[in-house]
């Protein structure tokens, strides 16, 4: 058991490598990541480097997951389109769901278009449900593997676990 029920659930669902950039909505998740051995967690310096490192880990035979704030998605688009989507590389993603009207200004413009962004690139997503971490983890890993593309679990403020 780590500090994160979500991370434990994802590891039980088969995730072997995590790369990511922290978000305050994912405090528990990243607290869990810090307990992982160095070969299983990459504290990336920017989100595009995290998803690119996940391609390397996948080529190396690991089931790799990327975690980030939704503000980092813009940086990731080139890698998601020219590596994961183009080459058929699965990528489970844990992405925070910032940007509702009560959130700070800097989160709203991209945050309120996050779902449309995934839909535009035919990236499957679902909103995480508090208490359903195990089922959400299985859906995320199975969907990414089956469709050989990114799949996203959107984590709102109340769903950090």
């Amino acid at each position, binding site marked *: 058991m780590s500090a994160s029920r979500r991370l434990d659930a994802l590891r039980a669902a088969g995730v072997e490598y995590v790369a990511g950039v922290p978000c305050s909505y994912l405090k528990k998740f990243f607290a869990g990541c810090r307990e992982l051995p160095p070969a299983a967690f990459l504290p990336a310096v*920017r989100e*595009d*480097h995290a998803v*690119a490192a996940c391609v390397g880990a996948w080529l190396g035979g690991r089931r790799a997951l990327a975690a980030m704030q939704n503000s980092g998605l813009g940086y990731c688009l*080139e890698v998601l*389109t020219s*590596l994961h989507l183009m080459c058929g590389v699965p990528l489970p993603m844990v992405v925070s769901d910032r940007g509702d009207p009560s959130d700070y200004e800097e989160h709203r413009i991209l945050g309120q278009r996050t779902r449309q962004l995934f839909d535009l690139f035919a990236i499957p997503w679902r909103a995480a449900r508090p208490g359903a971490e195990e089922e959400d983890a299985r859906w995320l890993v199975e969907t990414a593997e089956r469709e050989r593309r990114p799949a996203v679990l959107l984590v709102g403020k109340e769903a950090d676990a």
Partner: protein
Amino acid sequence: MTRAEAVALVLSRLPEDDVVVAADGAISREAYRAHDRLRTFYMLGSMGQVASIALGLATTRPERVVALDGDGNLLMGFGGIAMVGGLKPANLFHVVLDNGCYATTGGQPALSRQVDLAAAAAAAGYRWARRCERGEDAGAAVDAWLAAPGPAFLNLVVEAADPAPAPRVPMTPEEMAERVRAALAR
């Protein structure tokens, strides 16, 4: 020394077990033409991510992982050397074929003539980092780099001229990725 000659030189020094990540654009095409290997991943896009992909491989594989990078490519994703230097995977060997320009798009100048890439890699924490200016020294420089403690960084200055452009790699993107993954799973 042309970039294509430098690519061929580096590949000639690598055993077949080594894993190679070849930068998108001319470097991948020249790597394929010089010596196609089952364990070479040919990037097509994602400029700036050579070191990051190599890092993901190096932390999950025991073999040596060689990042075959370009100067414009490295500068685009400069944070990559911070992750490699900070985490210090001993099996990651990074070489930058430095022609001082964006050759693939028409030779526009890059900032690599104003930025000391080897000094940046050393400052980021690579255990060994050198710059090689002259073609006649390149063979010895490559040998010293591959014998150095990793992560090791070699900035290999090459000519800007591109006398014989290499054709595109004749594989689909899915095939390029699956081939490397399958070769590493054996």
